């Protein structure tokens, strides 16, 4: 109701304005449209310059978030990067006056937006673009600096670790070397001392044994020599005795035998010569007797000789074995004694050696044990340290990569967003008027009022016309539409109100933020309500849409431009830039959080049968099915004449059903589902 009253007031205002112009401005100078006649007279194209005062400065107070801290003490997790990129505040001069060549139809008015200039002749649109580009550049540069810083930090971390590790190793290695040297020295000393002792003992023992052997070895030789000497003496004595006896006997026999023979011969001769023949037989007998006697004497002498010889021989033979036996016994005894002594010495030597060896072995074993223990401990230490170092290295590398990726993503996102925003702003600043004339919806508010010609016009709040206003003829088409002819009349009449419409248009590119949009709408409304309506249709997010129009507001030549305060640029690191929805009344009403990566739900049925189906591990485009829909819509690329939109719609419905049928589901799951629903809806919205 309130709106109706306002609209009525608005139309009354328009009628008053038109009446004013009808009265003041000569009819020839103003285009007049007669709805009943359906004809259109073009207004004069004479431009009447006017100025609009700007409030002063445009400020872009973009604040920068504090630098994120990596590897904080409290948490090893990398923080989500709160990218509220900030550009240092800059004061931009707003054109203080705007000179607008007033045209008399909407299409011309739209195109003059580009011609709005400040007092210095600078184009306001260009100023805005400059500001936007300047801001963008600063944002990008800030982002680059920030990324550089982070990359530097990311590079610095492993470098610091490596340097620290190197320093640690440089400190540790000499210590380890010292320890090794100490152990080595200790082992060598410990080994050398008993070895030396043993060597000394062995050498002493060997020396003593050798001396003993030499001494012992002398004993049998001396004894043998003595025995041999004694034997020789004995032999000499025996031989002397034997020789003497032999000589004596021989000499006695030699001396006795001739004598005996001579005697016998003499006797024989005497007897032979003296005794007759008969006697000779007797003598023969006697000779036989003498011969027998001689033979007996010889035999006796021989027997004596033999007996003596035999006796001497037996004596010698008896003495020699005894002497030999004595010598052999002495030799054997000495040899046995020596052997015993050698055996004892050997035993002593072996005992000493074994004792020394055992004595040496023990410290050697101890030393070996110490060395083994040190080695094993070192090995275990290394085995423990190496995986930890590797883990740390891997962790740092991974975190560095993650940080780098996050930063890169943020940077790319910021860059992309800013560029996108700039493009959008540019588009709205420069291209929107063109777009406006390509497609326009005129919303007719409910109203009923008397026109200047005395007729009554009924106005209804519905869309009467959708089409392009590209030139006068298309405008005529709108105006000639019977149901909207009153508004066409108003538009025309307003269009002839030079200096009214034009200032509104520079404010139309209201995409940068609500305030800007609101301001734009406000200006538009102040400038001319119909512009406000158009703005309201095209920029439904504008704050001024549908606001009451102050009846007493009229645009004067020093009408002020609004203060423009762009919001700080805030980018969600997990989100991608949001392209504006350029069609569809329900699209883009709110900022939709895009779900780029597959979310995790606690409900496994939800996860397995809904979420997993929307995101594939091999997805080339982030955002799952919603991302695919967006990509297909943006590029027109498809697979085998097939699109993802049906799937998107089906799962949209499926998720909504899940939500409705799981009112007691975990809030986190509900949130996930809601995000997915919004994301898919948003993707489909652009279709």
């Amino acid at each position, binding site marked *: 109701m309130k709106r109706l009253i306002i609209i009525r007031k608005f139309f009354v205002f328009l009628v008053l304005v038109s009446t004013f112009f009808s009265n003041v401005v000569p009819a020839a100078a103003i285009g007049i449209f007669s709805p009943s006649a359906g004809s259109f007279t073009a207004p004069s194209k004479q431009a009447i310059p006017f100025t609009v005062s700007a409030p002063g400065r445009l400020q872009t107070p973009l604040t920068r978030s504090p630098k994120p801290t990596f590897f904080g003490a409290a948490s090893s997790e990398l923080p989500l990067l709160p990218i509220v990129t900030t550009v240092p505040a800059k004061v931009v001069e707003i054109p203080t006056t705007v000179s607008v060549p007033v045209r008399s139809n909407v299409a011309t008015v739209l195109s003059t937006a580009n011609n709005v200039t400040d007092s210095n002749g600078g184009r306001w649109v260009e100023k805005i673009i400059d500001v936007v580009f300047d801001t963008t550049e600063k944002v990008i540069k800030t982002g680059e600096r920030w990324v550089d810083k982070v990359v530097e930090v990311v590079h610095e971390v492993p470098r610091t670790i490596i340097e620290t590790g190197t320093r640690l190793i440089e400190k540790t290695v000499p210590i380890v070397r010292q320890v090794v040297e100490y152990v080595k020295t200790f082992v060598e000393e410990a080994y050398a001392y008993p070895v030396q002792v043993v060597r000394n003992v062995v050498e002493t023992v060997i020396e003593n044994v050798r001396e003993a052997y030499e001494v012992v070895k002398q004993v049998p030789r001396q004894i043998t020599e003595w025995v041999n000497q004694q034997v020789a003496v004995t032999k000499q004595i025996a031989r002397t005795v034997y020789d003497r006896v032999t000589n004596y006997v021989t000499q006695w026999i030699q001396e006795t035998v001739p004598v005996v023979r001579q005697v016998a011969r003499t006797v024989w001769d005497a007897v032979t010569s003296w005794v007759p023949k008969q006697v000779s037989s007797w003598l023969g007998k006697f000779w036989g007797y003498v011969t027998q006697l001689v033979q007996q004497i010889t035999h006796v002498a021989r027997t004596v000789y033999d007996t003596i010889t035999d006796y001497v021989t037996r004596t010698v033979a008896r003495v020699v074995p005894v002497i030999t036996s004595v010598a052999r016994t002495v030799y054997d005894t000495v040899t046995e004694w020596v052997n015993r002594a050698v055996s004892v010495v050997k035993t002593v030597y072996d005992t000493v050696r074994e004792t020394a060896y055992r004595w040496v072995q023990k410290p050697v074993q101890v030393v070996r044990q110490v060395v083994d223990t040190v080695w094993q401990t070192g090995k275990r230490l290394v085995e423990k340290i190496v995986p930890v170092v590797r883990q740390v290295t891997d962790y740092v590398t991974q975190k560095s990569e993650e940080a780098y990726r996050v930063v890169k993503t943020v940077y790319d996102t910021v860059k992309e967003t800013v560029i996108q925003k700039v493009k959008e702003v540019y588009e709205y600043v420069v291209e929107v008027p063109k777009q406006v004339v390509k497609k326009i919806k005129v919303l007719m508010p409910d109203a009923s009022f008397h026109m200047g010609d005395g007729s009554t016009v009924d106005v209804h709040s519905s869309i009467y016309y959708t089409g392009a206003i590209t030139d006068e003829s298309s405008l005529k088409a709108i105006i000639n539409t019977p149901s909207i002819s009153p508004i066409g009349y108003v538009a025309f009449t307003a269009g002839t109100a030079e200096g009214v419409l034009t200032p509104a248009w520079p404010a139309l590119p209201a995409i940068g933020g609500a305030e800007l949009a609101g301001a734009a709408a406000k200006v538009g409304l102040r400038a001319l309500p119909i512009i406000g309506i158009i703005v309201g249709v095209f920029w439904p997010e504008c704050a001024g849409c549908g606001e009451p129009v102050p009846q007493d507001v009229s645009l004067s030549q020093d009408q002020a431009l609004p203060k423009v305060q762009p919001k700080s640029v805030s980018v969600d690191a997990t989100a991608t830039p949001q392209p504006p929805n350029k069609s569809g009344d329900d699209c883009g009403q709110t900022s939709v959080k895009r779900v780029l990566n597959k979310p995790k739900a606690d409900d496994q049925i939800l996860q397995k049968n809904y979420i997993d189906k929307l995101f594939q591990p091999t997805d080339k485009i982030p955002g799952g099915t919603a991302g695919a829909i967006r990509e297909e819509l943006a590029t027109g690329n498809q697979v085998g004449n097939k699109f993802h939109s049906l799937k998107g719609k089906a799962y949209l419905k499926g998720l909504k059903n899940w939500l*409705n049928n799981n009112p007691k589901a975990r809030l986190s799951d509900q949130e996930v589902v809601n995000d997915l629903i919004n994301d898919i809806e948003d993707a489909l919205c652009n279709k």
Partner: protein
Amino acid sequence: MENLTFQNSIGELLRLIPEIRDFKDFQAIASHGNADNQYVVFGVFENFYIESFQQNKKDLIKRMSKFLEEAAKSKDIKLQELAAYGFLENLSVKADYYGGIVKTFGEYTKKQLSELNV
């Protein structure tokens, strides 16, 4: 098999593969009110296919493969899309079973799958 279309795909699936009714995922989505949602049902069908393959249910696999082949070679574009994005797209190339399952597919199904993987 009746002339298979996007509209009658669920009915035909349940008629030809009645075992799926007892599949817990199907019961779950039915309880969510999605038993008539072709894409959600085909998603469950895919889970059922994989599970049956892993359990080596040859006869069942044969019937399911035939049904999928019918959908893949259908002239109904929506049904083709359903087979492609409701079933084939969800198969994880990295899964152990992928190679084995693909071997069970018919000619058209394999063709669709290869188009998806381009």
